[in-house]
């Protein structure tokens, strides 16, 4: 097989509050022989808030980010569900609306860029499942996670709106019964935990303006995993991770019981199964300590 190559859009969180996510992405890519070329020119995607303030500006900035994947002739790979949503949504809107695309390109021309629509956009989770292949990952596992019950937490923006996100998936994900992350847990030798909150919202986006709502949603997710005997949780989204990992005290207070639980990034889980060291995966950067190794 030809070596897989992607233009990596890291997003902001991986560069700031979840450094372990970027470390583990590179560690896993190296194990799998995937080449990631970082889009160092990329700006913030606006995290689904900038468009509330200025929708057009959000489109222009996201289109600019995609331009740099296009100029490298690569598929853009994201490692944050919200980056995935905002970027894929921009592509979707520009590709179906030539007038809007022209307006955006008029601005991009000022800096010598043009959005063409030639690059696909996919989350790293789907890149390794669809393009690399679950079977091949399973074959490469050297430390099967067989002693762990692992609760997948999908994160809204990878699975909804399904019509948009399934444009980039080989196998359509059912937002009411997603399976990709469960399949990945099984490929890593782990036991996948089924629970009601696995495809629900963590509350991240209203943490500042509606902290009670946010904490209850986070608490519900952690409780669901806990009540179904999970040893730890795994998520493809660094924003969900921030909520579940760093905000467990607020969540515990909101739902009236201790819901502290280790939460891994999906890259860290794969990395553990492939034999990466805890240091390579940045496991020391978690607030809810990783106490099971």
């Amino acid at each position, binding site marked *: 097989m030809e070596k897989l190559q992607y233009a990596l859009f890291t997003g*902001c969180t991986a560069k700031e509050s979840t450094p372990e996510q970027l470390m583990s992405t590179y560690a896993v890519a190296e194990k799998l022989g995937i080449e990631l070329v970082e889009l160092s020119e990329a700006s913030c995607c*606006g995290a689904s808030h900038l*468009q509330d303030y200025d929708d057009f500006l959000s489109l222009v900035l996201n289109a600019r980010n995609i331009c740099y994947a296009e100029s490298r002739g690569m598929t853009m790979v994201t490692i944050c569900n919200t980056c995935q949503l905002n970027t894929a949504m921009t592509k979707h809107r520009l590709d179906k609306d030539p007038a809007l695309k022209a307006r955006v390109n008029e601005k991009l021309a000022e800096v010598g860029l043009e959005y063409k629509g030639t690059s696909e956009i996919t989350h790293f989770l789907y890149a390794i499942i669809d393009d690399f292949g679950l079977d091949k990952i399973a074959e490469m596992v050297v430390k099967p996670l067989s002693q762990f019950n692992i609760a997948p937490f999908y994160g809204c923006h990878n699975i909804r709106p399904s019509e948009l996100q399934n444009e980039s998936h080989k196998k359509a994900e059912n937002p009411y019964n997603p399976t990709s992350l469960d399949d990945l847990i099984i490929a890593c030798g782990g036991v996948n935990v089924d629970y009601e909150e696995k495809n629900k919202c963590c509350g991240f986006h*209203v943490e500042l*303006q509606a902290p009670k709502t946010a904490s209850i949603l986070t608490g519900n997710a952690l409780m669901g995993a806990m009540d179904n005997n999970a040893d730890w949780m795994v998520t493809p989204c660094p924003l969900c991770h921030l909520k579940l990992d760093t905000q467990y005290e607020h969540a515990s207070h909101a739902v009236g019981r201790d819901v502290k639980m280790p939460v891994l990034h999906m890259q860290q889980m794969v990395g553990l199964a492939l034999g990466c060291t805890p240091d390579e995966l940045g496991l020391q950067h978690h607030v809810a300590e990783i106490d099971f190794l």
Partner: protein
Amino acid sequence: MSMQAITTQQVTFNVFRFNSETDYLPYYKQITMEVTSEEVVLDILDRIKWEHDGSFSYRRSCRHGICGACAVKVNGKGVLACKERMNDMIGLFGTELTIDPVSSKHAIKDMVVDKKDFWDKHEAVEPYLISEIEEHPEMECYVTPMESEALLESDLCIQCGLCHYACPVIEINDAFLGPAAFAKAFRFNADVRDEGIDERIGIVNQPGAGIWDCVKCFECAEVCPKEVNPIEKITKLHNQTFERNDAIDNVATRHAVGFAHSIKKHGLLDEGELVRYSEGNIGVLKHVPVAIKMWKKGKIVMPWNMPKSDKLDEIKRLVKSSSTVKF
């Protein structure tokens, strides 16, 4: 025309049963039946009542996906029972299906729910044309096709309540108006004949009740059987708020604006600065305990180490030339 052969398969249904007058708690009744490939979910509800239990209750009326009465949930997915084909349900979830009301919290009897909260919130956004009209107008009020396109199909809403009861915030926060009410507010705000936009913008901007408490989970967009896409309308209401200079200076609005400031300065988002800008110098103090924990784990980037995007000049130039609003 080629005819597809009708196939049959055995499906087990777990049916939510509850009578608020006699039952302390709901329970599930298991019914197994042969389902043909041309049936819709409503056919199953009919057959449960006609063939298995005459006391089973559900709402139905038009059978054409326009009255919104037969909304139920199948394995957690909100559907209009008359529109959703059993074949598709089996394809998505297999041959063991759970049928629930749209909100078990609001169940009166089986699938029948009390939608009072939905209608109260619908009414709260003034869902009608507000306009000074002459008592004896001499001509009609014209709306061009282009002007009606600006409604973005928000007028297709049939008030089935599926988005309202799929919304996780509705479940938690009784004050929250919810996606259906917001889509309706947009529907009239976007109508060229309407003059009530100022009032509605005021209503949908209330902290706790309004658009700023939306968690952006896209459950409403996913579930809507008429493709109204309520969250798109919520974004439009946010945009109207800023475009009309009606944004209240508070943590929620600053949170949205803060992204533009940060991108202009660094290209990337300065997470710490966003929290400080949104909360203000005093409000930010409540985040200090968590920030210290994060700092100890190497999760906080100090301002002087803030990474910047390459080609930042390009980003600054685009922010300047492409901005459409000011705050």
